[in-house]
């Protein structure tokens, strides 16, 4: 091996109680040039207070427009091991369930074709294999596909759909998140691998309003499980919470955002018509309270992180929908109407949330053929001088507004 690895600044990151990525990479730097030069280049970046990566622009595997993020060192002579350092995104299994054999498959492939370094998982959900050379991309892809793996999304395409574990492990699940992620991934292979949108489009699925995938803040389309009927109450279990001294008043009744819970002795009653499904009471008393029986999901659109414009939260567009007998046609139809309208009228690098902000929610709803609903109201109107009924009456009579 070449000179001794000297990284005094990075070494600082190994101090303290937390696991350190520096320690992890060092453990591989003994045997591989790529992790070794990665540390050396990073040390230089810390010394000089500047980055030394160049975005690769155009690398990938034949026929796919996503799944590989190209990156080159700006100092290839000094750090030849990271002259090429492309990232490969691998589509994760639904709910991030792996067997140990599956993990070994991935690790062996990456040891053979890349740096051996990987992240589990990237923010979109994929397994992220860090660092390989251009000539290793096709062999990596071939080795992955031979074992039944595929690349995930990147660029202006459908990003790898991701979901919470849902009914696989969680009693709160109001729909089968695992199945939906699987179906969407298979149905939209073209959109996932062949960038055709104005910009990226992320779909995340959470089985209930706890939203463990943070879909409401981090996906262009958040599919969040919800129920329509009443919260189910197990009276005996509720009484046990009281007997055990659990302070229902302080921890549940007073924390209900709509104040729709009342407790008399060992009896609880919930005004379900005022429940906003925040999950708080269910989370605090999971043995006594549970989601209702009439389950489905709500669709919220337009969240994004604050990169170009400010951060956006998703906006409700479908308050309740169900998949019946495994028929996804209604959901596919909605998604495709949304894509088509955004595609037609959106601008380059404009996320769907930004697009809706620009054209207005009313235009968007009309464009995709949805009726406006009270659940779509973000805030009460604050202009007291507009009277809608009169406005429409005047319009009908052919009179202009003053």
């Amino acid at each position, binding site marked *: 091996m070449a000179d001794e690895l000297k990284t005094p600044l990075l070494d600082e990151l190994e101090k303290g109680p937390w696991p350190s990525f520096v320690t992890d990479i060092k453990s591989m730097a003994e045997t591989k040039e790529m992790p070794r030069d990665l540390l050396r280049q990073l040390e230089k970046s810390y010394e000089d207070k500047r980055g030394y990566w160049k975005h690769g*622009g155009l*690398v990938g595997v034949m026929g796919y427009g996503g799944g590989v993020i190209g990156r080159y060192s700006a100092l290839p002579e000094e750090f030849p091991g990271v002259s090429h350092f492309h990232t490969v995104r691998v589509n994760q299994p639904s709910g991030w369930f792996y067997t140990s054999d599956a993990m070994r498959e991935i690790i062996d492939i990456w040891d053979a074709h890349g740096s051996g370094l990987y992240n589990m998982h990237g923010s979109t959900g994929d397994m992220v294999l860090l660092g390989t050379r251009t000539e290793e991309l096709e062999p990596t892809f071939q080795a992955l596909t031979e074992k039944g793996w595929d690349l995930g999304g990147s660029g202006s395409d459908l990003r790898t759909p991701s979901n919470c574990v849902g009914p696989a492990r969680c009693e709160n699940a109001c729909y089968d998140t695992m199945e939906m992620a699987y179906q969407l991934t298979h149905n939209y292979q073209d959109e996932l691998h062949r*960038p055709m949108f104005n910009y990226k489009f992320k779909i995340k699925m959470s089985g209930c309003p706890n939203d463990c995938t943070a879909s409401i803040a981090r996906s262009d389309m958040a599919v969040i499980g919800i129920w329509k009927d009443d919260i189910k109450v197990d009276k005996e279990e509720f009484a046990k919470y009281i007997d055990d001294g659990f302070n229902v008043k302080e921890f549940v009744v007073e924390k209900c955002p709509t104040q729709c819970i009342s407790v008399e002795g060992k009896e609880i009653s919930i005004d379900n018509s005022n429940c906003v499904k925040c999950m708080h009471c269910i989370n605090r008393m999971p043995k006594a309270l549970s989601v209702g029986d009439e389950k489905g999901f709500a669709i919220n659109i337009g969240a994004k992180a604050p990169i170009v414009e400010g951060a956006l939260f998703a906006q409700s567009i479908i308050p309740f929908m169900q998949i019946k007998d495994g028929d996804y046609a209604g959901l596919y139809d909605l998604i495709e109407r949304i894509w088509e309208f955004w595609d037609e009228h959106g601008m380059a690098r404009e996320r769907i949330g930004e697009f809706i902000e620009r054209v207005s929610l009313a235009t968007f709803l009309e464009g995709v053929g949805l009726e406006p609903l009270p659940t779509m109201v973000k805030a009460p109107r604050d202009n007291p001088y507009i009277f809608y009924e009169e406005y429409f009456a005047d319009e009908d009579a052919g009179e202009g507004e003053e």
Partner: protein
Amino acid sequence: MGDISVDQLAEDCYAIVAENAGQKKVKAGDLQKAMAAKYGDQIGRADVKAAIKQLMDSGRTVYGYFGGSSIELPHKEAAENQ
């Protein structure tokens, strides 16, 4: 689809990409719009998608990325190292 074959659409799309090479990043949506303008109802979105797929699978065009994804002729990237 009417009389316009996927091969024909692929040729038309290729011509647009080649014409704009080095000047303007052509996106899949640009090709959809151009083909819709040229052929109207004779073709659908799926036909243009199939044409792009054909160009990509044959290696005549490649996907590029610079802020957004584009369809380009194969070329050497400025950032590329040996």
